[in-house]
């Protein structure tokens, strides 16, 4: 089973990629752990992810089961920052 992870702009700049695949992730927690491992310094991830919510296929996991939200093959897990537009 594979899910796609999409990063915030700041995370993407730090890592040099916009998105990557994670194999065998069954919950959001697995994805967050996998994303953290990609950063050389874990605290950089912690700093950047502190201001980011997590969405699965566009739905915030805070409206589901948080980090325990289960994933399905082909899901997209996105880190998302609040913003205002026009």
């Amino acid at each position, binding site marked *: 089973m594979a899910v796609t992870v*999409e990063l*915030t*702009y*700041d995370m*993407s*700049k730090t890592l040099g990629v*916009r998105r990557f695949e994670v194999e065998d992730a069954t919950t959001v927690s697995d994805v967050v752990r996998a994303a953290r491992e990609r950063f050389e310094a874990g605290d950089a991830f912690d700093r950047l992810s*502190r*201001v*980011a*919510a*997590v*969405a699965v*296929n*566009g*739905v*915030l996991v*805070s*409206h589901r089961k*948080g980090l325990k939200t289960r994933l*399905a093959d082909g*899901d*997209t897990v*996105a*880190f*998302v*920052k*609040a*913003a*205002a*537009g*026009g």
Partner: protein
Amino acid sequence: MIKGYAGRILEVDLGDESFAFAALDEETARLYIGGKGYGTRLLYDRTSAGVDPLGPDNPLIFATGPLNGSVAPQSNRFAVVCKSPLTGGIGNAACGGSFAFGLKKAGIDVLVVSGRAKRRLRLRIDGDADAVEFLDATDLWGQGTYDTQKRLPKGHYHAVIGPAGENLVLYAGIVSNERIAGRTGVGAVMGSKLLKAVSVRGSRKLDMEDPKKFKEYTKEVRKLFEEHPVMGESLKRFGTGAIVNTTNARNILPTRNFKYGHFDDAMTISGEWMEDHELKGVKTSCIHCPVTCGRDVEVEGKGVVKGPEYETLALLGSNLEIGDLKKVSEWNYHADDMGMDTISLGASLGFAMELSERGMFQTPLAFGSPAGVSEMILDVAHRRGIGNDLADGVRRMAEKHGGHDFAMHVKGLELSAYDPRGSYAQGVEYATTNRGGCHVQGASMYLESTGPLTINPQNLKLKAELPVIQQNLACAINSMVLCIFTTYGMIPKAVHNMSPNSFVHRALSTVLENSGPVFTRAMRMKGKPMMWFEKWLTYITGETFSGGHLQEIGERIFNLERMYNLREGLTGADDTLPPRMLHEPTFRDQTSGHPLDQLLPRYYKNRGWSAEGVPSQKTLDRLQVRV
């Protein structure tokens, strides 16, 4: 006269090239403030049902409010009100730039332009001499909005149209500096009157009830804005394009004529990308606004020009499956120079691409391809070839070529860049907003999808209450006249600083989502002024404005707009969403689209309207809406 108003309406008749000053009606100002509210009252009273929106009997009303002419941040906007040639209902649009400031300096609260000129004209208004000149505009006709403004007299503030307005493109706008009153085709109405430009000057001062308090408090607000995560950080650094990555992650970024809510290349058209790759170091603002949400970019052959904002990035970018910011910037330049609303333009291009793909309308346009788009934008502005079809907007294109199921408009106004299938309150707002499918007449999406504290956007809780409150507030804001972005500052810094994954954050979100009638009652409570715009209004006018007062005034304006639409033949059946939004799911756990049928009856009830969407006499009496 109440303080904060110049006390004068300038009446201009283009037919006989005459003008007169009249007194502003104090009672109307008390009931409707100014701007959109006052303008709507005038439009309702001065026109009869069925007036031709592009005929001489449709007045074009430029209206300011008591905050205009002051140095309050975000306060230099004017409203334009008329019957919309695009929707056939209420037409209005707001615009920043500097024209509102100019009108107030000239001692004019409202400018009413009536009739149709016998020749191509521009107006020059001197508020100090109380003079209006009717000047020949033949040499300006055909010029873009940028060149036109350069050629107009210095020391004046201008509002102009481009070729799109001249050629009656139904979504042409009116431009001041590099900002545009874009929506509902107000520029076409100006063009139909053969009026190319209005230039105004004056040196009058705004008379305030308590200038000392206003000055001191404005300093505080400026500091508050500087330190605010949206006003002083996000909008200032990245402009409105900062939201592209957010709407994309939330699956509500219009993509491929709204078929999808996610675009793989969204990042390369985002505000952050613009900051890193395209920005020329110049950020621009409307006069006296410290937020500086505008930014300049370089367009090949045109130099450094205004960059695209969020709606443009989405409608001319992801909606056409274009991830090239240089291209979007180039198209944005053309649209601005021609004087066109980029939302309606982008939606019309997207619709044309889908029609073309399905073999229903032959065009050279295709999703994902920039080929032919620049040329098409200029063809639209000049109504050349198939550009003539696109110039009429999505609804009329669907009437001619078919494709109603994927024609992205409400009441004829093309949908803004927040997909309502992932933002249910925003969907109710689109469906019910009097001018049609627009986001800045409430902006519920900020509290359910994009802001720092959001409710679950995909259940029914608060989705019939939030739009009412937001629409009322927006009506009041657009009547002061203040920028709607000011509402983004209402969520305090402390909430922004909270981790979105924290327990407290989730708890606040849950409380808000379940607040229902309590939320409505709390927002409608009258008391002391608390928000900055309530205090500004109070210090300037001497009248008391609290959140509850503004809710009442906003509700009055909204109901008057509604009565105008009903008079023009619109009905509750027009309070709907495009079939694609109602029936095609875009989320994995959705079986259908937006649940409007479950929310609309509740919304009507909250408004005090009948099941058919008609305001009851009791509601009209309560609000003192005279019809």
